[in-house]
């Protein structure tokens, strides 16, 4: 891929993201004429419409875009580090850790007194999972052996799942229901504050991973090759694992576990265009943002006023598209 070609494609993807954001703000359970939406976004017109557009739709679209970008970037990074096409953001047990944190906070009733308690507990749980997995992997094999990491992630994830089932069994029906809602994943709770906090994590993380793109290119061939070519493998690995996991942790904290985006978006970019991480990282971020924003818009309007879990939409839309892309590529 030439530099100019990559630039054009990224520009195109950026336009798609903007389009998805605009559509997402324009549609919803309440039908508003496009003129009203534009006026409301600028703070004019009916105060109820202003509240709907500025406080409900806009922050939600922005958070969906940021989370989609974070999950896709994180998925692409894990696929390079683990050299495994099945790798996705939750593969190292981050989602299990986040879920145990969130479910614990819900069962203990913390979320009643402070709205930020559940996302904070989810983030803390995800951090515990990351540290446990990395420590476990470091203490067993040579530092951060890929196979050991994968096994540690799967084992820790399974253990956390067991803990969640235990908590859910012992809790009352009410907390059970709240916990299940949380685990289904949704952007319904998005606020400007949440979007701001997420952006603070996301932007430096994205830049860091983009900075590691050349090393990731070499590491996806093989760690030894990368080392021979001058990559400081251990450092790159630790940094990339930490950043990708943090992005996942922040995503799970604000929106719960939303599958499919982190697994498939990087593959779509690879199949359609290029697997060069200098292109793959920003392209995955943009495509992930557009895909998640669009999926959330569909989730909100498909059977309005009832909202579908966004994970249902990402799978229902993404799977057929991905299969079509795969077939076209093979043929």
């Amino acid at each position, binding site marked *: 891929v030439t530099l100019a070609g990559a630039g054009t494609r990224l520009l195109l993807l950026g336009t798609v993201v903007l389009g998805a954001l605009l559509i997402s703000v324009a549609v919803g359970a309440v039908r508003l004429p496009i003129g009203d939406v534009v006026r409301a976004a600028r703070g004019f017109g009916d105060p*109820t419409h202003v*509240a709907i557009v500025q406080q409900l739709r806009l922050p939600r679209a922005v958070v969906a875009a940021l989370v989609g970008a974070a999950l896709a970037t994180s998925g692409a990074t894990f696929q390079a580090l683990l050299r495994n096409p099945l790798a996705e953001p939750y593969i190292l047990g981050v989602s299990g850790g986040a879920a145990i944190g969130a479910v614990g906070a819900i069962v203990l009733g913390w979320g009643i007194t402070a*709205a930020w308690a559940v996302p904070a507990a989810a983030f803390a749980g995800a951090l515990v999972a990351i540290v446990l997995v990395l420590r476990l992997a470091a203490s067993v094999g040579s530092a951060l052996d890929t196979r050991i990491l994968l096994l540690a992630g799967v084992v820790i994830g399974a253990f956390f799942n067991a803990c969640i089932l235990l908590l859910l069994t012992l809790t009352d029906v009410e907390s059970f*229901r*709240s916990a299940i809602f949380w685990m289904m994943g949704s952007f319904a709770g998005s*606020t400007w504050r949440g979007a701001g906090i997420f952006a603070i994590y996301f932007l430096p993380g994205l830049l860091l991973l983009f900075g590691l793109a050349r090393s990731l290119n070499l590491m996806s061939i093989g760690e030894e090759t990368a080392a021979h070519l001058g990559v400081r493998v251990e450092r790159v690995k630790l940094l990339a694992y930490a950043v990708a996991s943090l992005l996942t942790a922040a995503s799970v904290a604000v929106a719960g576990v939303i599958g499919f985006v982190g697994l498939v978006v990087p593959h779509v970019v690879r199949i359609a265009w290029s697997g060069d991480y200098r292109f793959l990282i920003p392209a995955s971020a943009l495509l992930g943002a557009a895909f998640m924003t669009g999926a959330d818009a569909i989730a*909100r309007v498909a059977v309005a006023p009832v909202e579908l879990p966004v994970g249902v939409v990402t799978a229902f839309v993404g799977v057929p598209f991905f299969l079509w892309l795969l077939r076209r590529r093979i043929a």
Partner: protein
Amino acid sequence: VWLPFPPVSGKDGIFLSLRSGTFSWLRLRAAALAVGLLAGCAGGESAGGAREAGPHGAGGVSAVDDAGRTVSLPRPATRIVSLLPAATETLVALGAGGTLVARTDYDDDPELAGLPSVGGGLTPSLEILASLRPDLVIAWEEAGAARIRPRLEALGIAVFALQTQDTAGILANVARFGHLLGREAAADSLGAEIRGQLAAVSASVPPGERPTVLYLIGIEPPLVAGPRLFIGEVLEAAGGRNAFFDVTAPSPQVSLEEIVRRSPAVVLVPSRDSAAVMARLRGAPGWRELLERGDTRVTVLPPDILHRPGPSIVPAAWLILRAIHPGAIEGM
């Protein structure tokens, strides 16, 4: 048709008119209230006093919700969204059905069918809620993580949070809604009528043995009504002894072994499909043996009436009385 009750005549008949549901009773009540108010009771409404006591001075109303917060309105609510069918039912019984501006997908009163739906009561569309400009939203106080209340409050919409579990809660709701709507007189009379009807149910219990009763909320896994849940209280009032009198949770999950060991005389199962319930219990190990022994009688009851902690508690109590004591004669 699916209820094994003897036909009842006269005044009590309204409590068994199940086809038309609870609302026949509620509408009757609302109508009676309207008549009462027109007949001059309106002047006697103590609403004025309560309004002046409100924090907004004259005209303001307030009440403490189940989250422990004092919800204050500058004037009695006139545009209400109730996210809970039981609260909706209470409002209708207070004669305030006209103040409702939306319904949920779970409200089955045909009179509400013309209102826009906000979706599910626990997962309403915030957009639609906001667009209806309600001055009061009645919502379930979620355990663990409050998702709806803070969002609505951020939009400047007053939220009254409920977590109704028992009869005291049902009566408290009636009184509190009375304050928030400026309908204290209607609330007083509805509260008195619910108390009176429950007392009438207790008075109708035939003397003698009080059978052990298991109220089975869910079959697999077995979820039962504990004594603290309103349905558990109704069960005692209707002359039964709760087979799980000793549990603390409102609706705990129990083991089938324990059910078999306690072998209740009466099992009440809320379900719309009586035949399916019976087939399922007869085919399930444990239940099968319990039923074959012949000491246990299963009665299937309509869930819509029984699972609403609101004025439906009255028809629910009569239903349960007849299920536990098929021969009971109502001494109103």
